[in-house]
């Protein structure tokens, strides 16, 4: 019997089927301290409220934290929709916020360079 762990990873998709990714680094300015989990929940809820669950699935939206940077991952088609949704985020857990988009890139490596 083969265990789940012994199964090898799936072979990578061919380039034509593979999704083109975009990474957006943002900075959240607020008078109070905001936890990472609060940011994650607020961003997901904001997009869900604006576009709905089905669209959220289409956007292939993920959030990553890298030291001070907040990195949003999505596919290249949905990039404007992700960025415009940031404008509708007024507060996180009743703490008022301003969002600044630092950089947009296709790879995390370049994104970090651009965000400095």
């Amino acid at each position, binding site marked *: 019997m083969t265990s789940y762990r012994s199964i090898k990873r799936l072979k990578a998709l061919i380039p034509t089927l593979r999704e083109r990714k975009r990474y957006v680094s943002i900075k959240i*300015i607020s008078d109070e301290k905001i936890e990472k989990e609060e940011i994650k929940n607020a961003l997901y809820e904001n997009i869900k409220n604006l576009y709905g669950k089905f669209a959220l699935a289409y956007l292939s939206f993920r959030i990553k934290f890298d030291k001070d940077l907040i990195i949003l991952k999505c596919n290249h088609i949905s*990039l*404007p*929709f992700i*960025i*415009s949704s*940031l*404008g*509708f985020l*007024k507060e996180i857990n009743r703490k*008022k*916020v*301003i*969002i*600044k*988009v630092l950089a947009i890139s296709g790879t995390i490596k370049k994104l970090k360079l651009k965000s400095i």
Partner: protein
Amino acid sequence: MLDAIYFDQNIKEKIEIAKYLGYDELILIFEEINFEKINDTINKLKEIFQMNFYSCILVDNFKKLRKVSNVKAHKQFDLLFVNGINLKINREAVENVFVDGLVNPQQNRDDAGFNHIFAKKALKNNVALIINFNQILNSQNLTREIEKLIELIKIARKYKLKVGIFSFAKTKFDLKDPIIFSSFLYCLGYELKDAKRIVKNSIKDIINENLKKRSEKWIFPGVELI
């Protein structure tokens, strides 16, 4: 990049945040008509922040509009915006030569408050369509508001109207990154190229023309001392 913010007591705080977000020029919106005070504050802020500031008067009734829509008064400020609170004032705004922008004509209405007839008049009188993002954000029915905006954008694209999108920030938290505005315009139906152009220098032509008008040599549209 150009943004419009309300002038109030927290103006310095707002300007600093706007500078950080990447704006290099700001339109300051005044609701009170006191030309001396407006020009003084603009000059003081220019000295402090080393930025370009433009004065703008926002009117929402006929009485105020009549007071400022004449050659003598128009030389005292840079821009004149009309808040589109009802259909009558929307019509008056697009027919008035002195008006530079009509702000959110869809306010308090079920429809866009702006049609092809208004668009033709606006194009003739060089009146831009201004989107107040803060008001849309705080509206009770966001879905309906966005629906009306899509209709407005459709008309504006068809008649090649000048469009501007500004935050109209009352507090520092109302300020938005310029890239958010360009993405929002793309979502509403603009091409990405046009959306970026609108955010970068949407009503710059109108401002430059109005700055010319403020000189003593300018008499009336088409009449100038050489």
